């Protein structure tokens, strides 16, 4: 197991370095002049040159790359050319916001998806089953951007139940950070009003982000439940006179959850990528929004940082899933 762990860590490190190289060179060969953009529309050539020198963009590409790699390994992600702030500051503000959103979305997807999947399996080929399958197809087919706007129209404009966008009220007092997750920190500090407000703000973006994942979870949970319910040990349990609820929840669901958890591991990366759309629609100040703004400004330092962080998270999730599988199935460690 130790050897397998070391091998996987080496692969992880190599992939991270590869990602670092690829993103750097793609960002640098992309057309557009970040210095000219940052200098403003009427800037003179001398103004553009001032910015180019200030950000080291006048240096040869290999020199920029070697400095970038050194900086990354020392924890310096550079400075944003459009905001002039250190990228690490942007990341420190945006990362917790994205994590909070993704955690809520995953939580919602698991609870709702599994529940719907179980209901569909238990009432197979009934109206409930058809409704869940329709819902699952909708989740995969609906464009998130459009779905988000639709929810805003319904819950913010028509019903007025939820705020249109943002993470918290404009002048709401923020809790002193502990975990940097606003809702959790509000609870830990006993600021229940702020926590409730945070829940109202996160409801729509988390729902939109979770929807495709929720649909997939419902489909997988349904099919796994159906398969498990038809297995020998469930028949045996029935023969021993166990109640339907006990068989479905305590025995069948527990087994059906393993593929669901693997699916969540894979979907986690997809969700991080999906935040770009959702955060734009709901002005959620996370990594996705930072990425979109930076791309539009040809501000490649934040783009590189966000790509690395999302890439690292995805690889880490896959690594943990692999390790978990290897833990449970020793044959995989030989591969």
């Amino acid at each position, binding site marked *: 197991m130790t050897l397998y762990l070391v091998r996987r860590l080496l692969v992880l490190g190599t992939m991270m370095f590869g990602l670092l190289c690829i993103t750097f060179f793609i960002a640098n060969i992309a057309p557009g002049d970040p210095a000219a953009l940052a200098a403003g529309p009427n800037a003179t050539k001398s103004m553009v040159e001032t910015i180019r020198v200030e950000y080291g963009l006048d240096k040869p590409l290999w020199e920029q790359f070697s400095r970038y790699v050194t900086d990354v390994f020392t924890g310096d992600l550079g400075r944003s050319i459009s*905001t002039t702030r250190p990228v690490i500051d942007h990341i420190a503000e945006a990362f917790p916001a994205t994590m909070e959103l993704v955690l809520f979305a995953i939580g919602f997807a698991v609870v709702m998806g599994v529940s719907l999947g179980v209901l569909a399996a238990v009432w197979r080929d009934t109206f409930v089953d058809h409704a869940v399958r329709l819902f699952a197809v909708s989740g995969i087919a609906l464009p998130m951007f459009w779905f988000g706007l639709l929810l805003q129209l319904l819950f*913010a404009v*028509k019903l007025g139940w939820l705020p249109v966008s*943002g993470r918290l009220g404009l*002048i709401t007092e923020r809790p002193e950070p502990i975990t940097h997750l606003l809702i959790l920190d509000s609870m830990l500090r006993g600021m229940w009003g702020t926590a409730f407000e945070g829940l109202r703000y996160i409801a729509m973006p988390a729902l939109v982000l979770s929807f495709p994942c929720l649909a997939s979870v419902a489909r997988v949970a349904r099919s796994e439940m159906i398969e498990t319910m038809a297995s020998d040990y469930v028949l045996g349990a029935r023969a021993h006179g166990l109640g339907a609820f006990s068989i479905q929840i305590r025995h069948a669901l527990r087994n059906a959850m393993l593929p669901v958890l693997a699916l969540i591991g894979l979907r986690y990366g997809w969700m991080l990528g999906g935040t770009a759309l959702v955060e*734009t629609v709901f002005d959620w100040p996370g990594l996705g929004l930072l990425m979109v703004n930076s791309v539009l400004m040809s501000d490649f330092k934040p783009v590189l940082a966000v790509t690395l962080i999302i890439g690292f998270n995805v690889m880490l999730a896959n690594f943990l899933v692999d390790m978990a599988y290897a833990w449970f199935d020793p044959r995989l460690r030989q591969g």
Partner: protein
Amino acid sequence: MLRMRFLTTAFTAVLAAGVTFGVSTTDGKAYEVVDGSKILVWGGRTPVSNFDPHQRFDAPHHVFQSAIYEPLVKYKGNPSEIVPWLAESWEMNDDATEWTFKLDPRAKFQNGDPVDAAAVKYSFARALKINKAVAWMLSGNLKEENIEVVDPSTVRFNFDVPSPSFIGYLPWWMIVNPKQVAEHEVDGDLGQAWMMTDTAGSGPFRVKQFRPDAVYQLEALDDYWRGWPQGDKHLGGVIYQVIREPSAQRTALMTKQADIVEGLTTADYQQVANVPGIVIENNVGSSPFAIKFNYQDGPTKDVNLRKAIAYAFDYEALPELYAGDATLMTSPFPSVLKGHVEIDGFPRRDLEKAKEYLAKTEWADGGLELEYVHQQGNDETRRVGLILLNSLKDLGIDVRITPLLWANMVANAQSIETAADMTGLFMATYTSDPDSAATQYHKSAWGQWFGVSHYDNPEVFDLIEKGRKTAAWDERAPIYAEIQEKITADQPELFGYTPNVRLAHRDYVKGYEYTSIKMSGFADFGSLWIED
């Protein structure tokens, strides 16, 4: 599977229809009330990352910077006039090489320090040294050593060459408190790091909250040195909430989660105009749109082809893009500029004339394809491309519409070889002086995004230089009239239109004053109040 897809589509369509019809609004108000003061909520599209007026210069930054900092003079009213601000009076010598300003003795910075001549000199020198933001306006002919502190309340600017247009740029040059900047200077950075999020100005507001990319809050100074025009009703502060999508902006205004929004699409403005309690400010703008030809390379190098395109274009379709809220250009210079003249026979659609010009080219029967580049994400400029495509079909010319990110448009404009045949661009107007428009037709604009035409006429260049160095307006006016005539004759671009400046707000927001020589979407927070 097909049935599932059908059901899904039907389900979402019903949901969409259900929420679209009969839009209702909530009863709340966007503004916040803190200790009896009303704090306006502004829903803006672009993040504001830097409050230092010498580091950043664009529309959303300027809205904030001009609430915190003040210039010697300001543009006010419509038509725009230069009015005293930190300076109570000024004079120019006969040959426009000396400008002397007398400061208002009441003027003080937010911390109580007086705004004196030394602070003015320091501020101009700082902006020139940093060499960002507004530096481009004056860096060509203003030097630090030529700014003279005559006495604590008098400052003089000396120029090597006559500079009659100098005062027109001053409303963009903000005065900062040298003492506060010096206290926060790190490694000779002129206080740039500190000034990003802190305040060293004399304006009516100071920074209270800075949450990057999300929310920025200003608070009002009750003892503002000029006093408040609306008395005790003045705003207690302003919150700028970043709302990136126009549809979300519209929703925020309709649901009373924002008091003011700007930058909506024409369709959105039309929709919100019908909602009770919402007012649309709609004024003739000063930022012309033009399709700039590549003057020196490719087919558009031929003046007859440029003329043919200009006469084939369907100009009447342009204002329709804005539901009529746009004005066609009648000269290369926008109408808000001093010295603007209407040119006789300014190109309008005339297919016969267009064909006559085309016949003089090597493409007498058409059969060529031209590229039109516009900014990606800007729907109006995309639709101009469609009008162009449709108009040129009558000449047998195909148009390839290429959307580009702004960064790439800037890059393409840098050389004659990379500039597209036609590039659709908006120009901002920063002063009421005609030199600001003439500059884009000077050789010095080559390489800049607004010089993408690479227009080349030495006669016009000489006139532009003569105009900017002539002191007396009576002598300058005919020069600019001639410049407009000559540029029209050369047709370096298809002269388009000026869209109106629109802004939507709740009806309880009062005191909005439009000033044409300001960037689109500007509002002076100091003049606003909430009447409720």
